[in-house]
């Protein structure tokens, strides 16, 4: 079964790049541009991995993460957090992010981190 990555990123160009990089590895990528509906999508689609931008319109990445970790059903979902602000690493780790990547990143780094996170 192909790996399913759910990508939450509001910058359309960054989302486009991520989709290209991840799809090239043969993974299935679905994308949402804002913070609302993420929880519903996670429950409905059951992705293998969530890549979450920190600054999002609607609901911030930290809030989403907190909600996911509070729900037993989604508690174990691997989450990789993206941010463009250096100081956010602590906040993200406190909220329960499994990996933290700051922008800008190298494509290889993303792929490697995803592989490490899902163990493939």
């Amino acid at each position: 079964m192909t790996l399913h990555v759910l990508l939450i990123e509001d910058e359309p160009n960054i989302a486009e790049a991520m989709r290209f990089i991840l799809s090239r590895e043969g993974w299935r990528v679905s994308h949402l541009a804002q913070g609302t509906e993420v929880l519903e999508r996670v429950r409905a689609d059951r992705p293998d991995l969530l890549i979450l931008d920190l600054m999002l319109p609607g609901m911030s990445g930290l809030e989403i993460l907190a909600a996911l970790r509070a729900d037993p059903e989604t508690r174990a979902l691997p989450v990789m957090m993206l941010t463009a602000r250096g100081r956010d690493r602590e906040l993200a780790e406190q909220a329960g992010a499994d990996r933290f990547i700051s922008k800008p990143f190298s494509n290889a780094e993303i792929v490697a981190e995803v592989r490490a996170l899902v163990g493939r």
Partner: protein
Amino acid sequence: MPFNLLVAACLLYVIFLFTVAFLVERRALIGRLGWLRSPLVYTLSLSIYCTAWTFYGAVGYAARSGLEFLTIYFGPTLVFVGWWWLLRKLVRIGRQYRVTSIADLISSRFGKSNTLGVIVTLIAVVAATPYIALQLQSVVLSFGVFASAAPDGQAPLDAGSTAIWVAVGLALFTILFGTRNLDAKEQHHGIVTAIAVEAVVKLVALLAVGAFVVWGIAGGVSDIIARIDAAHLNAWQVQPGRWTGLIFLSAVAVITLPRMFQVMVVENDDEGHLARASWAFPLYLMLMSLFIVPIAVVGLERMPAGSNPDMFVLTLPLAEGQGSLAMLAFLGGFSSATSMVIVESIALATMISNHIVIPLWLRWHPTAGAGDDLRVVVLRARRIAIAAVLALGYGYYHVSGGSAALAAIGLIAFLGVAQVLPALIGGLFWRGATRVGAMCGLVTGFAVWAFASFLPSFGPGAALSEAVFQQGLFGLSWLRPHALFGTEAMDPLTHALFWSMTLNTAAFCLGSLLTFPGPVERLQGAAFVNVFDGGAGPQRWARGQAEPEALLTMAQRILGEEAALTLFQSAARDQGKEGFLPDPTPAFLDTLEARLSGSVGAATAHAMISQLVGRAMVTVEDLMAVASESAQIMEYSAQLEAREAELTRTAGALREANEKLTQLSIQKDAFLSQISHELRTPMTSIRAFSEILTEGDLPPDMVAKYGKIIHDEAKRLTRLLDDLLDLSVLENGTVQLNLEMANLQQMIDTALTAARQTRPERSFVIHRDLPSEQIYLKTDADRLTQVFINLISNARKYCDAENPELRIAVRQRAGRVMIDFIDNGSGIPKESQALIFEKFARLTDANRAGGAGLGLAICREVMTNLGGSIAYLPGQGGAAFRVTVPLRLEKAAA
């Protein structure tokens, strides 16, 4: 003289007056009135006391009753010579409490009771009706004189249709004149100046006719004195009773006539003018009466028996072949009539709109939305009221047949308005006078006047039946209109004067003694009676829960957007706050109430503020303040209050400064982190795609697409860096300004075109007033245009209305130009309004559309560099920004 020429002369004259009024109002708008606010203009404007009745009727009066006509001048002379006693107080109260009319004064004094306002308004309207009819009649008569003398035998209009045309013409003229703009303020500098011009015209005309009679027809001064001696005018002898009555009546009328109150109190700019007028106005009256008797005597000698002595001023020159002198006299009479009708109907329209229409409107639409709906209602109400007042005048003229002698009608009107006197004098000098007493007096006096003077003036069998005249009302012989309580010895006027004033005063005093004043009445009574004892009157408001924004919305309904914003801004500044929303302190509420009173009257203003402040008007403390008048306590508490106000102001300023500092420090930290974010985001895309491209193996269309993304993001980075540099240059004040003369309209055009690139898919309706944009500014046009582009783009981005609209309004005031950009979206929430001009203060991330949130911060810096400012305007029903820029920016200031 051809009738058409006469009409043309009238029209030309009216256009001339309109031009005068228009030019003066233009000067008033830019605050350069200068000599137009002199005692001379004030005194001349008072001359509307001399109406067509005086101009034509005095000669007729002299021909019929000898020197009795002088009583009409004696009364006002006495009042003005004794101005220190009464007029000074009236004017002081009028200015201090922004009184809009005599009805407003009475209503305000007696506890801001609108019922009293309505009663006085009704009395004034009913009493003014015959008076306006009188003016119509005199104009019709004077037209008639020329028509019958027309050599070409052209049949002129008959009297009835002339009257209609004159009434319609005057109504249109007054509406154009008196309600020309939406400014609800009660002072009309333009009109006052036009009235002053008319005063000169009528004086010159009457003096010219008099000089012609004395030196042209008679053989000089000694000859005319001989002729007067020889003439057998009726009643040369003085009748003490009637004379006293008439002097009293005219003295009262000069105080209580709505139009006199309007020019004397409402339009007064400076109390000092009154001192000058105290001798100058009697002098004017003396000049007006100088040649009355010679004209009357020569007229009786020269004119055929049976000709109307009221028209001697016209018929004498005509009969002597002096066409142009007659024309001058005609214009003099026309001036007298028009000036009276204009001011009278404006005064009455103000009363009707403030005391009848607005209270009703507010009852039906208590909470209409933002905007200036109320001012539109006020304006419309005044226009309709003007037309209605003139229609009533015409109706009276039509019904009474225009037959009675001019003087008789005038005196009936005088007596009608005189009924306000007891309540007025009592209100100014007697603290014990109460609302109930005032009502009793007014209603009683009005009823007696109507029964004994007004209704009988239509003639027996018209308003009152023949039987009532003979046997009395309900057959009670002591209720005969001309012989109340069996007093048959007096002439009808003295009789009506005696009984109406006596019963009025008695009812007023009795009513006042038997009732207790309410709390607001006590406060107002003390404030009015002791108006010279200093102090701005008692404060009536406790610190309420009123929302400043709601107060602003209400104030805008009445004062209009601009005046309201200015008022609120300066109040906020006095409290040491920035922006347009002051704290609703008692002092501010008082100021606001006073301003609103100036537009809609005290009763309505009080009611509107009470509605928002949500408090039953007066508290125990207020009553205590009235009860304990010990000077010490007052002074002590005044000192305490002043100190407390000072402390509050300082505390407010400190609090605001502290909040600002705290936020600034937080923002400083946030700034770096924001810059990091804004720089990293485009860089992420660039790095990711450039890696993808270097790895190769991509189809050409993908290469092109990704190349374009890299290019766009690189541009975005550049723009961000440009903005940051721009901001830093502007903040350091090291910016190079390129000052030149530039056309505002072109700048706005450029900005609109440029801003169209922002969300081009949205169609926006733009409202502009192009003529108002025809202003040449000395400024840096590119920088100012940059600000406009930013504001328009923001509207395009963030206005969330379904059919977005943007209104651009330009105003010029005192060397500064204000450009407002107002959209119809949901606006900016109050808590964010103070933040939007800070760097990276983009309110939501929903519509970033490529911006980094620096736009408004740059705008603010640009405007500071241009010597102007940019501010958010609350309460406009959408997001609204005001850009203020000096008309001419000088290099040294930059």
